[in-house]
């Protein structure tokens, strides 16, 4: 019986050139990862939204509010105009909250827009006859409110809203009497105010599109880096496997070819069986099977099974992930024991405090030379009349 103190477990990733066998599962790639690009594009969009909120609120406070105060004497009822201005301010506040919390649905967006439309039409209708366009503060604010809440909806919706707003104002003007100068004034305001609103809305859409493109470019760059990193890991794993073969299977094959090793010799046959099992394990290490230690043990058992040894593999409990180097030590022990097994072997994996206990019971008929303990794995064995019990215990600490 040998009991060896485990060395401190190696970290999972080794120095360059000696990576852990087997590639890590996707999503655990090393450095070079960018923040999710969707978030990046989202951040730009939010900045544009904030800019529009500031613009609309600034317009209503300074532009519309200023005009309201300046033309105060002209209104029939300043209180009514003030109330409409406040109603508009509330609509803008509600609209700002909605767009800052995410894209509002059509119901909420249009509810706010209609409040603005009604308030502006009422304010226009209450203006003194003949001076409506001159003292109208509300048309611009209503249009900007529409831009605010309909900004990220279909462009047609904003166009309909701005048209409805213009028609409503024109209707009020028509009620007052439509002279040629009034029509010219109306068109001038329409061109300047609505033109600016359409320009801002179109500008934000263009910026949104640009941010989306930038994000997509970053995403594809990120994907390319990820692919490169994966390729590097796979390449390193292949190299490690090739190196492993160089020192184990290749010399044996060379001896067989040269005739210095005799296949009739039992020792040579055992060496061949061990190398065959190792080759299978090497292939299994490349597979990304879940519960890779169990998978690799199955692969290691394959050669012995072909030899007619009955092998059972059982697990108990939720098994921890074992790092590649420790898995190597454990599967090496498995290969050593299974190669010596005569008719049956039982392999168990049990979750134990801070690690895993992998045990082997087999009718080897003799003690088996087991691999050196290390990489966090302690190995023990006990011999009881022809049956060997061995345990490789990996401790995560």
């Amino acid at each position, binding site marked *: 019986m040998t009991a060896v103190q485990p060395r401190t477990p190696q970290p999972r990733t080794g120095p360059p050139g000696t990576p852990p066998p087997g590639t890590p599962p996707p999503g655990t790639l090393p450095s070079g990862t960018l923040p999710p690009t969707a978030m990046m594009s989202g951040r730009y969009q939010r900045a544009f939204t904030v800019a529009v909120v500031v613009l609309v609120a600034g317009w209503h406070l300074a532009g519309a509010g200023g005009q309201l105060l300046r033309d105060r004497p002209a209104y029939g009822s300043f209180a009514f105009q003030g109330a409409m201005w406040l109603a508009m301010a509330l609509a803008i506040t509600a609209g700002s909250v909605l767009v800052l919390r995410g894209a509002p649905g059509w119901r909420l967006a249009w509810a706010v827009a209609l409040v603005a439309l009604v308030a502006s039409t009422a304010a226009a209708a209450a203006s003194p006859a003949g001076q409506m366009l001159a003292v109208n503060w509300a048309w611009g604010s209503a249009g900007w409110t529409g831009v605010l809440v309909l900004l990220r909806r279909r462009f047609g919706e904003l166009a309909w809203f701005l048209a409805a707003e213009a028609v409503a104002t024109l209707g009020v003007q028509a009620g007052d009497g439509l002279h040629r100068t009034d029509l010219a004034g109306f068109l001038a305001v329409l061109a300047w105010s609505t033109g600016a609103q359409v320009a801002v809305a179109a500008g934000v859409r263009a910026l949104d599109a640009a941010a989306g493109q930038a994000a997509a470019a970053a995403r594809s760059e990120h994907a390319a880096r990820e692919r490169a990193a994966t390729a590097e890991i796979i390449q390193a794993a292949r190299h490690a496997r090739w190196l492993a073969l160089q020192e184990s299977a290749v010399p044996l094959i060379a001896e067989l070819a040269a005739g210095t090793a005799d296949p009739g010799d039992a020792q040579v046959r055992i060496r061949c069986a061990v190398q065959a099992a190792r080759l299978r394990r090497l292939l299994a290490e490349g597979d990304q099977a879940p519960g890779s230690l169990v998978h690799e043990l199955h692969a290691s058992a394959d050669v012995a099974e072909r030899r007619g040894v009955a092998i059972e593999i059982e697990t108990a409990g939720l098994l921890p992930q074992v790092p590649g180097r420790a898995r190597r030590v454990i599967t090496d022990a498995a290969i050593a024991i299974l190669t010596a097994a005569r008719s049956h072997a*039982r392999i168990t994996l049990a*979750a134990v405090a801070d690690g895993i206990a992998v045990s082997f019971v087999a009718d080897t008929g003799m003690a088996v030379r087991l691999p050196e303990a290390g990489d966090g794995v302690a190995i023990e064995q006990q011999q009881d009349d022809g049956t060997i019990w061995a345990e490789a215990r990996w401790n995560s600490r």
Partner: protein
Amino acid sequence: MEQPVTAAIIEDHPVVTEGVASWIRSDPGQRVRLVQTARDLTGFRAMPQPSADVVILDLELSGELVITQIPGLVAAGCRVVAFSGHSDPAIVMETLDSGAHAYVSKEEGREHLVEAVLAAAADRPYVTRSQARAMLADQSPARPALSQQEQQALLLWFQGMSKASVGRRMSISENTVRQYISRARAKYAATGRTAPSKDALLARAIEDGVVRPDEIIPYQSFARTAADQPSPGAPGR
């Protein structure tokens, strides 16, 4: 010479029944006699009572799991040994909690079925490797607290060592190994839902000195307060 223990088997595959019969026949001491065979539970219930000392029950009859039928069988006075192709720890635990004396997977039948039947007939605990596996894997909040020695004995037994080897490994006698494993089983009998079979197993364990009554006191108070509910929490020991 003692009277042989009588056994009934409920098994839907005749070839399995045949195999079990041959294991029973090949027991050197001829300690068990197979007296009844039924292909399903209806057939078994239709048989003249009293039935055998122990019922060997295949858990899957005609493609259906019959674990939920175990409490009924146990209440009717049967000692049930479950025999199944399944080895999923959750199924093992549920079967034992339902009042089965032991769980023998089909792979371990040759080695353990006769012994499990004999133990059940005497209301003594018997722990197969698949049972040990289920106990080791058990993470349910109602699981009993096992001592380190009991855990270690269960682990080595699950790993496939003989009880004599486990004893050598732990530097204790083979008898003490049995004691540890039986005690773990008895602690499980003291948890979960109540069943006459569990009471019998516990009473026998106390009589045999496997457990002390104070080690399973929470069970007794629990049995008094909650009739048939799953345990709300782990007993104190």
